[in-house]
């Protein structure tokens, strides 16, 4: 299968850089997958687990807490706000994120913002169940 150059970057460091076959990403508007030759796309990512497969990555699952995906037609870059490999991810870390999110949600008054926060909590719970 065709491969394409992919990079996963967090503010602290470059986490992965290499040729891969496919990347499954938790988009803000639903999950999607990027493969070689995907049309240029700039997408907002929500919290969730992304999966890089094929090529140099073999199969890697990484939890990201929001970010962007920039696919410019030939190369794909994911800018993640925070990224932890699923193997290193502990239930406690997720619990802490959930707790923080719940506290933040309790303070919000605008219904739209509240929905957003609740969606975030729900996603985090799903991630926890998947572990």
């Amino acid at each position, binding site marked *: 299968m065709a491969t394409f150059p992919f*990079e996963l*970057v*967090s*503010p*602290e*460091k*470059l986490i992965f850089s290499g040729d891969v076959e496919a990347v499954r990403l938790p*988009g*803000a*508007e639903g999950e*999607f997958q990027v493969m070689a030759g995907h*049309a*240029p*796309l*700039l*997408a*907002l990512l929500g919290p969730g687990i992304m999966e890089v497969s094929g090529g140099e990555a073999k199969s890697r699952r990484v939890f990201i807490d929001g970010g*962007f995906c*920039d696919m*410019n*037609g030939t190369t794909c*870059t994911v*800018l993640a*706000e*925070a990224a932890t490999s699923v193997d290193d991810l502990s239930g406690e870390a997720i619990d802490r994120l959930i707790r923080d999110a719940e506290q933040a949600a309790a303070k919000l008054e605008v219904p739209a913002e509240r929905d957003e926060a609740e969606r975030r909590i729900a996603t985090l719970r799903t991630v926890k169940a998947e572990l």
Partner: protein
Amino acid sequence: MASLKDLRNRIASVKATQKITKAMQMVAAAKLRRAQEAAEASRPYAERMASVLANLAEMTAGDPDAPVLMTGNGKDDTHLLVVCTADRGLCGGFNASIVRKAVSDARDLMAAGKTVKFLCVGRKGYDILRRGFRDQIVDVMEFKSVRRISFTEAHLVGDRVVAMFDEGAFDVATLYYAEFRSVISQKPTGLQLIPAAAAAADAIEHEHEHAPAAGNAVYEYEPDATEILDALVPRNIRVQIFRALLENAASEQGARMSAMDSATRNAGDMIDRLTLQYNRTRQAQITKELIEIISGAEAL
């Protein structure tokens, strides 16, 4: 004239000080390497962020829906100066030079009739600013307990700045920090955070110089470009703050290293001088005693 005992005590105390400054220099050197690595590791993210932002800014140029953080709120009355300094002293002129730069800009702004507010990140900046601008300091943020600056700290500062902007507490925000040039040279720098348009314009120019073809791709946006830009601009602010904090951390260690190096050298010079004085005094005393004995014997 100091007695021999006094001189001996002086020499001992200067030697102890020299040991401390030497140890601090070595610790700073070790920390500097780590801080420099962290600063370098953060570059790829900042660079890619800048190129995405430039791309989006071009797409949405002239769009009335563009986020206010990007274009500003059209006013220029209240300025927020975010002054990033270290939490610790003993690093030469590091903290003072950042504050001096911020204060000189603040005075220019105040002379032009603008209101100036300060947000201090780091204890030392607050200690200096408190003397002249007590009422204008909005808040102090300290990360003394944090061993290694991570994105979380930048997140806290960024959220604070954005929240204040949303409340309408200021119109323009500028970030002050020391850019790391080398161990002996750190340059105090002012960087405009909000509105971000000016910074993005620079990035666009930069982008065109390096990759003229990148702008040609027809992008699909999910959700639409404005919404992405809305989410991206606050993140970019955090990234800028993060970069400033990391540069500052590296600069601080560099400044401390060279300050402690010259302190160690000064202590060495002082020890040499004091030892010379000690030996001379000792010899003078021996000579004096000998003269006393001889003249005593002759008198008999």
